[in-house]
């Protein structure tokens, strides 16, 4: 097909065109927004949580650089907030999207927070006043800092509103719904953790020290409650050993048939950071295939195993169960490289891999590429890959949606 030659100057960036709807403010969504805005398009960014940044914000360290992702993410978010063409809708979700002849109509519902962020000076008075401890900081690396009220815990007593020096708190805010006229939409809704209940053998929920990798990340974060110290949730003692169980939930037809792509490196990173902070702790990674496909990933895994002394066991444990009295956790596994069966006691178990797209039930079985979706929503992807896809999704919108001529 011959490309239509735009009559207007391409540099006008089709500013007259309808705004683009971007669902999800994670790595992919942010990239898409910034690229579109930079190219002169107007954008509505709809984010379900109270903050931008998505899952990257939850990571204490990112692989393979071992740095925090703070400054690049933070600068991008600030650019996004100050970019003229971008309107951010936090705590919002798209409830309907009707396509019409010229553009389509998106209805989004916004649940304003009890504490208005623009009025909160994060003095913490509400937290002091709140008896059910529902008032909490929004998060460690949210700038500008602010507090929020956990609606589940809040008993609507209103003490906080009384003490707030800036009258930022209003406990009966109502949902608002608005309809936006938009052109195309990009879906960058990212991932969430799947319920592990269908897989009882991993014993998730039976013991506080059996946690998913993201829980573990938060538990051991530099900025978290333990300030980077590695301690057990039960009793707060120092664990002697930690088991990282890969593909727990992934590559498993009972839950998620696919490979979540990011968990191998994630576990290696966590294990080597455990080693870095407390070399005495024994780290075992139970893997099926150690998928280290990215730049420096393999070298990183070598450093973890050879230098830091992280132990790799090929095999998927068949049973994880707390020992009587909750003293430690038994892990039953076979090291398939040596065919040795073993039951071993661990103090902590980290389950890796139960990552699924945040919306919808999984990926299309035929593997057909969904148009204008990027990041984890279209395929399990790490930060870099998501960002690439974000940019390319933005491009498809710029050049009128039709895909590159030869995407097979």
């Amino acid at each position: 097909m011959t490309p239509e030659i735009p009559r207007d100057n391409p540099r006008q960036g089709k500013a007259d065109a309808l705004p683009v709807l971007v669902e999800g403010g994670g790595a992919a969504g942010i990239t898409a927004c910034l690229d579109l805005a930079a190219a002169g398009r107007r954008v509505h960014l709809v984010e379900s949580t109270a903050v931008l940044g998505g899952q990257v914000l939850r990571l204490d360290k990112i692989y393979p650089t071992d740095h925090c992702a703070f400054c690049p993410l933070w600068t991008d978010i600030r650019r996004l907030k100050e970019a003229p063409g971008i309107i951010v809708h936090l705590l919002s979700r798209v409830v309907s999207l009707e396509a019409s002849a010229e553009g389509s109509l998106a209805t989004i519902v916004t649940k304003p927070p009890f504490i208005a962020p623009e009025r909160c000076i994060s003095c913490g008075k509400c937290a002091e006043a709140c008896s059910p401890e529902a008032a909490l900081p929004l998060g460690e690396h949210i700038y500008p800092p602010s507090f929020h009220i956990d609606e589940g815990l809040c008993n609507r007593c209103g003490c906080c509103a009384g003490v707030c020096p800036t009258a930022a708190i209003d406990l009966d805010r109502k949902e608002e719904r608005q309809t936006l006229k938009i052109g195309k939409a990009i879906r960058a809704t990212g991932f969430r953790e799947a319920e592990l209940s269908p897989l009882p053998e991993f014993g998730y929920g039976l013991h506080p020290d059996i946690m998913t990798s993201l829980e573990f990340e938060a538990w051991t974060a530099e900025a978290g409650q333990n300030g980077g110290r590695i301690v057990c949730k039960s009793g707060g003692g120092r664990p002697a050993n930690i088991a990282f169980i890969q593909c727990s939930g992934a590559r498993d037809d009972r839950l998620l048939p696919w490979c979540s792509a990011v968990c191998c490196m994630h576990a290696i990173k966590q294990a080597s950071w455990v080693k870095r902070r407390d070399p005495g702790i024994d780290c075992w990674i139970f893997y099926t295939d150690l998928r280290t496909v990215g730049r420096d990933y393999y070298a990183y895994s070598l450093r973890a195993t050879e230098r830091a002394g992280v132990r790799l066991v090929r095999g998927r444990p068949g049973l994880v169960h707390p020992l009587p009295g909750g003293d430690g956790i038994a892990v039953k596994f076979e090291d398939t490289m040596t065919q040795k069966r073993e039951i071993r006691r661990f103090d902590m178990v980290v389950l890796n891999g139960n990552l699924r797209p945040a919306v919808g039930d999984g990926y299309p079985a035929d593997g057909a590429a969904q148009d204008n979706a990027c990041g984890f929503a279209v395929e399990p992807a790490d930060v870099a890959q998501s960002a690439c896809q974000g940019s390319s999704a933005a491009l498809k919108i710029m050049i009128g949606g039709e895909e590159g001529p030869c995407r097979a």
Partner: protein
Amino acid sequence: MTSTLKTIREKAGNLLAGGLADGVLCLGRDRFNVVQPRLFRKAEEVGSLEIEPKWNLAKLAMQTLRSAEKSFRLTVVCRGCDERALLELVKRNQIDAFRMTILSYTCGREQAEACLCARPYPENSAAGEKIEGVDPFGDPRFASLLAEDDQERMARWTGLLSRCLKCYGCRNACPICVCTPCKLEDDLWVERSAVPAEMIPYHLIRAFHLSDTCVACGACQDACPVGIPLLALQLVMRRSLKEKYGYEAGLEADRKSPLLMDFDHASPAGLTLPAWTVSSEAPHER
């Protein structure tokens, strides 16, 4: 007349006679029999050429070349230290290497000991017997300057530097100091009114500016009227540069100072310091 002097005179004469150089910069006796730097233009003049006493000609060579016309080719007769200084000046784009040839000679033993010179010889010597250098850190006089703990050293240097008259002799004599204006004359860095010069701003700033360029010629302390052993400030930094990066100022024409160069760009993944470590634990070249 020493054989070194003889050879130098002869070679200088040949250079001028053969038209390989338009001028030879060296010490010479004027008609009052005073030895001072002089620009020889004719071969027959070299009879009055001298190489003693020690006199750093690097800066003079730079100025000569600057003032002379483009085509002018200069030969500088100098010692090892001066040769290194010239090389540093070339590296710092102060001298056009193509217009200058060096006729260098090896110092005598007593000179080397007087200077505590580790390399009393040039890279390619035109005259004189190559002799082994002196290890300054082995010398009791010098070592005593660095001895004992911080307290003692602080007291010692306080005493030494408090003699300073702030004559700027050290800076002016230094063959590497070429900046105009100079930070040492700027109230922002050194209060001009304060005499003796404030130790930290004046002496340490001067010393650090030469951290990676000092060629240990000792011109600064030779020039000091109150005999402050200024070279001692430099040699420690020189030594650690040599130990850490194998770098010595004035030796390699095409190597930049390691204090300016970046580490290897391809930083291996995850090879960083643990959180907030103190630099002493830092991995160096990666």
